[in-house]
C-alpha cells in the first residue's frame, strides 16, 4: 500500500504571500498525483493533477511540482487570499489504478 504524509500542523500565512504545502509518499511512484481542496463539512474538490513525467503544472494562481526522486509533491498558491483558507489534500492511486489514497491534509489559514 501507499503511505502519504502531509504536514498536520496548520499553515498560517498573510494575505498576498505564497503558500507552499508538501506531500510526501513512501512507496512506489504513482503515474498521477492529484490535489484537492476540502472545506469544513464539504466533499473534496479537485484542483490539479500532475503526471509522473511532468515536473510542474500551473493553473491560475496554483502550481504543483512532482519530484519522483524525492517522492514529493509541492503545492503552491501565489498571491494568497483569505478565501483560499481550507484543507488541502494530496491523493495518489494504487498501482492497479483501482484504489485511491489520500493524505490527511494540511489546513491553510490566510489572514487578511
Amino acid at each position, binding site marked *: 500500500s501507499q503511505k502519504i504524509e502531509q504536514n498536520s500542523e496548520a499553515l498560517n500565512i498573510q494575505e498576498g504571500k505564497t503558500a507552499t504545502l508538501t506531500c510526501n509518499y513512501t512507496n512506489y511512484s504513482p503515474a498521477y*498525483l*492529484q490535489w484537492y481542496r476540502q472545506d469544513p463539512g464539504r*466533499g*473534496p474538490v*479537485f484542483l490539479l*493533477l500532475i503526471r509522473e513525467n511532468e515536473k510542474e503544472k500551473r493553473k491560475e494562481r496554483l502550481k504543483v511540482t512532482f519530484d519522483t526522486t524525492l517522492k514529493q509533491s509541492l503545492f503552491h498558491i501565489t498571491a494568497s487570499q483569505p478565501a483560499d483558507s481550507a484543507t488541502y489534500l494530496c491523493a495518489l492511486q*494504487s498501482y492497479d489504478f483501482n*484504489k*485511491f489514497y*489520500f493524505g490527511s491534509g494540511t489546513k491553510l489559514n490566510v489572514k487578511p
Partner: protein
Amino acid sequence: EPEVTQTPSHQVTQMGQEVILRCVPISNHLYFYWYRQILGQKVEFLVSFYNNEISEKSEIFDDQFSVERPDGSNFTLKIRSTKLEDSAMYFCASSEEGTGNQPQHFGDGTRLSIL
C-alpha cells in the same frame, strides 16, 4: 456544472440497524467510489465500482458493507448492521475513467451518526 448528489445529508441510526446511503453520480461517468472520513481524520477509500461490479475494496469494507447500482442513475452503499465506529462522513465520488488521469468528483457527503 454537473455534480454528484448524496442523500440524506444526515442520517441518525440505532446501532445494529441497517442503513442505505444514496448517491447520484455524474451521468456520463463510468467509475464510482465510496469513501469515509471519521471526524478530524483523513479520507479513507472504501470501494471502487465499475461495469456493475466491485473493482477494489479496502480492509474497512467487510461483509457488513455492500454496494449496488440498482438503476442507471443511483449508486448505493448499505451497511447491514451498524456499529458505533461506523459513525463518519461518507462521500461518494465518480470519474469518467478509472485511471488517475481523471479527477474524481465528490458529493458533499452523508453524515452518519450511530447511537
